[in-house]
């Protein structure tokens, strides 16, 4: 009689090293998911999760530029993000951004500038007094939020870096690292993400570099360790996790304008009278509100910024 002696285990059944090494990471993720799941089921879970987790930032001044509108919750601001380097779903950044290592972090400054070089983010930030700026942020997708940013005017940074008189634009680049950012493995945009401002826009007192929100260090999904905030432009202009600042005399080739030049322009000022080719920009939904609101010209910052664009046809320069 034939006794079949099939081997119980084949070589292909051996767990690959990469997998069992990642076991700890997996268990950690499972534990977080289990705790998170339990917290979600508990009554009042929403309030519990609304508390921040970052380190407190000391000596933050108030600012005359802040709006007194109702703030969106920490939870809203940190769970609903467009940050395609971590995935294109709104909750992908919150889920994946823990992989981003924000210290040490180097910012390269180059182009038409007196002091080109690489700066560690800590020493880059150090000279500036932190301010709280409560700004409206209007996404090109017709939703908006009110965020208490912590940061300092970009103008102060530019003055310190001393661009050459020939520099007319500032270009910013986001980190592009597939090891930390699973989203960049998919070519949904032409990575790295690039944004830019005209020099007068960059020097405007409303334009800030932000390193925190809600009094705490910036969460990774919101663009840690350092990001741009330009409150009168659509959200995608406010580039996250900056690794390079370049001064140039050419208009930067910004990521969305490259991806679809008919739909996204270099300026991208919030403008209820110029629709996106596929949808209206006349109204927006503030997160947490039921009814749509009317979108304001320059996102309500027209008194401060309209003069930057006097004489320009904003239909043409969208």
């Amino acid at each position: 009689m034939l006794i079949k002696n099939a081997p119980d285990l084949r070589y292909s059944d051996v767990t690959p090293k990469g997998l069992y090494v990642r076991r700890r990471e997996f268990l950690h993720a499972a534990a977080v998911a289990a705790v998170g799941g339990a917290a979600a089921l508990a009554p009042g879970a929403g309030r519990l999760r609304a508390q921040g987790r970052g380190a407190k930032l000391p000596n933050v001044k108030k600012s005359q530029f802040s709006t007194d509108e109702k703030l969106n919750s920490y939870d809203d601001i940190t769970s609903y993000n467009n940050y395609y380097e971590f995935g294109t779903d709104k909750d992908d950044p919150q889920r994946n951004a823990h992989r981003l290592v924000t210290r040490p972090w180097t910012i390269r400054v180059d182009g038409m500038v007196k002091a080109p070089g690489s700066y560690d983010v800590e020493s880059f930030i150090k000279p500036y007094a932190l301010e709280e700026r409560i700004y409206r942020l209007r996404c090109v997708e017709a939703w908006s939020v009110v965020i208490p940013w912590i940061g300092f005017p970009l103008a102060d940074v530019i003055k310190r870096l001393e661009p050459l008189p020939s520099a007319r634009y500032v270009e910013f680049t986001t980190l592009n690292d597939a090891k930390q950012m699973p989203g960049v493995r998919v070519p949904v945009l032409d990575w790295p993400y690039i944004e830019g401002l005209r020099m007068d826009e960059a020097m405007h007192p409303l334009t800030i570099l932000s390193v925190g929100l809600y009094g705490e260090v910036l969460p990774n999904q919101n663009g840690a360790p350092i990001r741009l905030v330009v409150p009168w432009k659509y959200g995608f202009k406010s580039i996250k996790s900056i690794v390079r600042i370049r001064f140039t005399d050419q208009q930067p080739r910004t990521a969305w304008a490259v991806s679809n030049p008919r739909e996204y322009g270099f300026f991208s000022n919030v403008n209820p009278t110029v629709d996106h080719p596929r949808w209206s920009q006349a109204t927006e939904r503030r997160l947490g509100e039921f009814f749509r609101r009317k979108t304001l010209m320059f996102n309500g910052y027209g008194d401060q910024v309209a003069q930057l664009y006097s004489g320009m046809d904003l239909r043409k320069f969208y």
Partner: protein
Amino acid sequence: MTRFTVFRWSIFAAALTPAAALVYWTFTGDLTANPIDFITDTTGTTALTLLVCTLTVTPLRRVTARNELIRLRRTLGLLAFFYACLHVLTWVVLDWFFDVASMATDVVMRPYITMGMTTFLLLVPLAVTSTAGWIRRLGKRWTQLHRLVYVAAVTAIIHFWWIVKADFRQPRLWALAICVLFGFRAWWSLQTRALARGRVSGGGPARFQTS
């Protein structure tokens, strides 16, 4: 209960899970920071998924030679219509709160909304005439009328495609899915026609009869 009945009920239950989850998440506060968008997306993608599932029934029936599968077709089709109704209701009630003027403008001005509305209007007569009574009354014309489901699948995918900003992976996958399904049907109908022609002309080339 036969195994097929169990199978049918589990498909029914699975198809209702997204709706149940939305209700559950409403109470746990887990509809994201933008619940209206989340409900719109969830009901829309579920409707499209079920619509494509409906189109897989007949090919699956041919491949597996299990005729009882045909009984799933109406169930899946009506479930797809159920989610399409939820999707449209979300838009009317939650997104625009009966602002008829704004909705009418969007239907006319925004091609992706025009496509969405077209899809919905195509599905309405199909849902209405899905009963045994209507099948009997319409006879041969019922089959002709229900071919509209192919048009609805195409317009649904265009509707999805036109709202995506940059990440076209999902709509591309759906387009591929229906291309495969359509391809199967086209090949099959060519084969049937060739067979019929062969029979009429009294034994012409029989290449489609072999295998």
